[in-house]
């Protein structure tokens, strides 16, 4: 396996074997360790000393199901701390097949207005060529992907940044192709798009032709694990074909969270949106059925996915508006902005993909702007205009592109839903206390993917604490965050968690797959330990960057303003929040 280091100061590159110390690291574990080892914690995120690191997970690029994840890491311009964001895409699988465990982009070109593309091919080992990509800048991404495929061939995978990143927005993601060559799969959060653009990199094109594939140390064990994982995914009600995710996508959660009173509405002023059913997964599925004349089940974002949760929203005339409209995007751009027009909501999502904006941060920013009176809540057409302003780089657009916290500051708003500078996603902590603990303490800033429930074994780590007490919730959050850091390193999509939590052999299968690839003897205990080590590395970087435990708090208004309909505040004591990392 190789580390490929690209220096954008002089456009040179180096290919080396993965050093011993990184041999058993991949995905998030590798990106976070390289950031901690090589990026000065006080470096400016958009300066020459930050680095952008890509790493596929352990089983990415193999025949393991639902495992084409790519992790992207660096110091975040949004939080000022360490960041890992990941996406499912053939790009991740291709990087792994080319035996690139880590791709590091470093340095910075002197010319500010010039952008480059990297074309990485296989020539006995990875080979990098540079091409001038300046002509592709400041355009919607759907306009620049087709000419790139034309130039490099249909089989390549494409990573890119949009106009938002070129402007240096804290709210810009790194974009990857989906299976239909759409620029639509995002490592969205934390502004890593701007880090990539700050290196003068517009595209990273991978051509895997001739590449040898991922080496597997123990093929029999890997096969055994893979079969167990496939069985689990194929039988579980949520992950099986035509099951919950395949029919309704993640937006299935809209009505549930709404009924629970935990769907943040109109900039977190209520937990219930009366028009929520119009933007939910059920509405998307049924609307598509009417508009296309048949039931449309969801598709895979990346090769080898059994779950296939990615939806498409079609317009009245049957043409495509956007793919994919996730729960968190439908929430942020919909309920949180008081918007219930499904077509306009889909258009907002599409525009975020076009300009390279994180949909969550964009929606929460628009809602703060609505609260400030820039446009009214619920005005979907005006919201569309604001996203265009971001895409065009107007002064207002630049303010909004800086994210929710900056926008709140510019307009003097106090109800600003952020932790460590990153906005809180779709699950209201005043209604769902457990997720609030994870939002407050995650190394990533508020992040709904930081604490998945993976396996019942974690209850063992908790000992005798009552899971409904604040201490119990803190202990669970710690275990969730650690096991999630492991999955983020495995290469699997987090959605395998639904199946392997309920089907123990699936969880075993995941560990066997990885042992098969690496030749290790990891056990369920090692999963938690591995994850905890990743968190420690991230935490240490953040502390050195000035983000201490004082930042492990939810915004003040959540402790003071009761949230309808339950009229509760976030009342988990600070000591419980501090306990999450004190006992790691």
């Amino acid at each position, binding site marked *: 396996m190789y580390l490929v280091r690209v220096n954008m100061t002089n456009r040179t590159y180096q290919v080396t074997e993965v050093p011993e110390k990184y041999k058993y690291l991949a995905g998030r574990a590798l990106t976070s360790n390289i950031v901690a080892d090589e990026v000065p914690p006080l470096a400016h995120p958009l300066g020459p000393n930050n680095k952008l690191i890509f790493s596929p997970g352990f089983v990415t690029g193999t025949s393991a199901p639902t495992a084409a994840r790519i992790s992207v890491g660096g110091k975040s311009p949004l939080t000022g701390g360490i960041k890992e964001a990941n996406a499912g895409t053939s790009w991740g699988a291709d990087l792994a097949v080319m035996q690139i465990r880590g791709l590091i982009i470093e340095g910075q070109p002197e010319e500010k207005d010039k952008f480059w593309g990297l074309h990485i091919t296989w020539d006995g080992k990875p080979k990098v060529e540079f091409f001038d990509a300046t002509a592709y800048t400041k355009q919607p991404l759907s306009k620049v992907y087709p000419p790139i495929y034309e130039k490099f061939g249909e089989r390549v995978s494409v990573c890119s940044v949009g106009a938002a990143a070129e402007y240096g927005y804290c709210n810009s993601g790194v974009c990857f192709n989906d299976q239909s060559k759409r620029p639509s799969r995002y490592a969205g959060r934390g502004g890593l798009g701007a880090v990539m653009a700050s290196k003068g990199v517009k595209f990273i094109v991978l051509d895997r032709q001739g590449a040898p594939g991922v080496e597997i140390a123990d093929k029999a064990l890997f096969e055994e694990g893979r079969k167990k994982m496939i069985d689990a995914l194929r039988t579980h*009600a949520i992950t099986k074909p035509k099951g919950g995710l395949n029919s309704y996508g993640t937006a299935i959660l809209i009505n*549930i969270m709404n*009924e*629970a009173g935990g769907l943040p509405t109109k900039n977190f002023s209520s937990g219930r949106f009366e028009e929520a059913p119009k933007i939910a997964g*059920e509405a998307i599925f049924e609307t598509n059925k009417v508009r296309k004349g048949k039931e449309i089940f969801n598709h895979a974002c990346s090769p080898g996915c059994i779950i296939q949760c990615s939806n498409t929203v079609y317009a009245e005339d049957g043409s495509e508006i956007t793919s994919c409209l996730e729960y968190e995007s439908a929430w942020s751009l919909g309920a949180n902005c008081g918007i219930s027009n499904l077509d306009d909501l889909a258009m907002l999502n599409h525009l975020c993909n076009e300009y390279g904006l994180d949909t969550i941060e964009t929606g929460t920013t628009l809602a703060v702007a609505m609260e400030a009176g820039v446009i009214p809540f619920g005005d979907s057409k005006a919201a569309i205009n604001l996203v265009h302003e971001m895409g065009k780089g107007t002064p207002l657009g630049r303010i909004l592109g800086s994210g929710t916290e900056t926008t709140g500051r510019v307009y003097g708003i106090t109800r600003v839903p952020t932790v460590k500078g990153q906005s809180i996603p779709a699950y209201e902590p005043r209604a769902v*206390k457990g*997720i*609030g603990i994870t939002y407050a303490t995650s190394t990533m800033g508020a992040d709904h993917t930081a604490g998945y*429930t993976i396996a019942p074994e974690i209850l063992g780590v908790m000992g005798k604490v009552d899971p409904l007490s604040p201490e119990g919730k803190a202990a669970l959050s710690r275990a969730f965050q650690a096991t999630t850091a492991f999955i983020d390193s495995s290469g699997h999509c987090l959605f395998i968690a639904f199946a392997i*939590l309920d089907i123990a052999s699936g969880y075993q299968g995941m560990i066997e797959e990885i042992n098969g690839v690496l030749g290790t003897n990891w056990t369920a205990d090692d999963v938690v330990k591995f994850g905890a080590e990743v968190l420690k590395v991230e935490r240490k970087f953040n502390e050195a960057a000035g983000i201490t435990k004082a930042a492990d708090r939810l915004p003040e208004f959540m402790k003071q303003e009761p949230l309808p309909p339950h009229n509760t505040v976030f009342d988990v004591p600070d000591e419980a929040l501090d306990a999450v990392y004190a006992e790691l």
Partner: protein
Amino acid sequence: MNTITVDTWLYGELARFGGNPEERIFANRKVSLPEGSRLQDLLNILGMRTEERGITFINGQLSAMPGLQPDLDHPLHDGDRVAFFHLRSMWPFQYRHGVTMIQEMQKAIIETDQMGLHHAYSKDQPKE
């Protein structure tokens, strides 16, 4: 006898119990019941078998999960909001950890072997 009105929300394929058998997105039906009615009585009036529903809420409080239905005898009051979800719906544990539940549900969850971590509890749902 006095009657009560229950604000009933039916989602996905359960929307067909809301009055229009073709409806599959959602339905909102105000159901009149005699005072003293329980959740089971509401199901009877809707014509819905209890096995057809999964996640259920009474006034925003979780009252049932697939295969775990401690709410059948829960008394209903005038103005209550009850929501029924179909079996393809889901609610991962990390997104419901610490939400409010009706008392019967809280007790039932604690009595499950793994503190309610799982998605489903019935025998036909995969759970080793």
